[in-house]
Every structure is written in C-alpha cells, then in structure tokens.
C-alpha cells in the first residue's frame, strides 16, 4: 500500500497512509504514515466503535495537515481493546482546539 501512496504523491496528490506494520512502511519510505498495533483487518479499530475510528482518523488528518517533510511517521501507542476511547477522544478534542487557537 505504501507503493500506491508513493505513486499518488509523485502525481501531485498529498497522501497520508495508515499501517499495521510500521517496519515495512518505514523501510519502503512513505510521505506521511502512521501505524497502530492492531490485528489485520482492523486498522481503524473495532466494528461499530465510531469514537475510536474517529479518533484514529483525526490523527491521520492532523498528520496530513501538519507534516512538513517527506517520511514523517507516527507510531500510535494505543493498545488493542485496552484503552478508554471516550476519554482519549475528549483529550484529543482539547488538544486539537488548543492547536487551532495557537
């Protein structure tokens, strides 16, 4: 999938790519990437957990807008099914509001 990101980016489309395997993505070299340690088939989390999915999407969009150089990669620390997603989402909203204000 990193290969597709590279092709799109070279064609003039800014990309942000999610990964389950950070090592492969970093070896390949993707413009903007972020990884989660979740099982295959669950890159944005659990089915019907909209809060969790939205939190991860916000991380992706934030990286898309903030990264200033090629190869920017973020390894998200979240543990599979062992996080308080509602609490994390609230904290993220506060962070994003603060960075908007600055």
């Amino acid at each position, binding site marked *: 999938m990193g290969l*597709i990101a590279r092709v*799109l980016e070279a064609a003039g489309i800014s*990309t942000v790519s999610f990964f389950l395997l950070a090592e*492969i993505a970093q070896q390949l070299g993707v413009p903007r990437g972020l990884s989660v340690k979740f099982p295959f*088939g669950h890159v944005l989390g659990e*089915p019907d957990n909209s809060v969790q999915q939205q939190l991860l*999407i916000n991380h992706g969009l934030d990286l898309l807008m903030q990264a200033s150089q090629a190869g920017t990669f973020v390894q998200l620390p979240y543990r599979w099914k062992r996080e308080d997603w509602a609490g994390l989402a609230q904290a993220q909203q506060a962070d994003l509001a603060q960075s908007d204000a600055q």
Partner: protein
Amino acid sequence: MRRAFNQLGAWLYRALPGLGQRWAKRFQVQTVAAHIPWTAVRGTLAQQRISLITTGGVHLRSDPAFDMHDPHGDPSFRLIPADTKPNDLIITHDYYDHRDADRDVNIVLPISHFQQLAAQGTIQQLGPCYSFMGHITDEHIDTLINQTAPAVARNLRAAGITAAVLTPA
C-alpha cells in the same frame, strides 16, 4: 482448496497477532531509492478534496470480485463512488479475517466518517474512492506501480482531488 488454506491462514493471523509481526520481519520489502515523493498540502483542511484508498479488497456488490485464484494476487482496482452506502459494499479477500469489516466496513474503508466530514464542512468534499486487493507479489507489483496505481492517480487528478487517505487490510 487453496482458498480454504488461505482462509485458515487468515484466521491464524487474527488469533495470534504475534505471527503477523514475525511474518513482517521476514517479508522482503522492495528496496526503493532513499527519495520519498512529496506534494505539500495547500490550503486548510476545509479546502481539501479527499479520496479514500484501501487495499482491503472492498468493492460494490454489483462489481466483479477480486481474483482469489492467482497466487500473486490481483493488481486491479475497483471504483467506489463517494455516496456509496456501506450496505452496497462487500469484501473479497482470503488473506485476512474480514468478519468484523463485513459488519462495519469503516474499519478498513472509513467512508461513512468521511461522508460526514464532508457534510459538516470539515473537509470540502469526499471524492471517488478506490479499492485494491493488497497481497500483491512478483510480476503484479510492476503492474501495480506502472499501470493500475498511476491510472487511479490520473482519475483522482481529473476529479480535482487534493489529498488521499490510505488504509490497509
């Protein structure tokens, strides 16, 4: 028979996440130049016209399935229009356990979320989305890099898309 074997493998990777990490370690990553392509984002998030790309083998029920019999994978892609409803989508992919994604496609293709982001004006527009199959090896990697991925890039440019969010299976 081969499909049943692959499906069993997919289940094992799901049951034992450590296997996936070990598989990754011995996976031969294609060596590329140190150069990483870069297109700077112009404007604000609210000005972005965004398309989603997944390698999760997602496609419209009305479209042909991905080829699960070629051991090197299927380098073709399927168009998923921006206004597609999750119920109109189905997954053909034997190399991962997609029972959860069958229930909620948003965990591999977050289309409902981005439809909402566009409706709220957080982003300007959700553009045409595309799905690949992933698990592409050998000669099909060339097809992907030189033919099918560039074709998607041209389609996105023609649609005025400024950014893409990519999600794997």
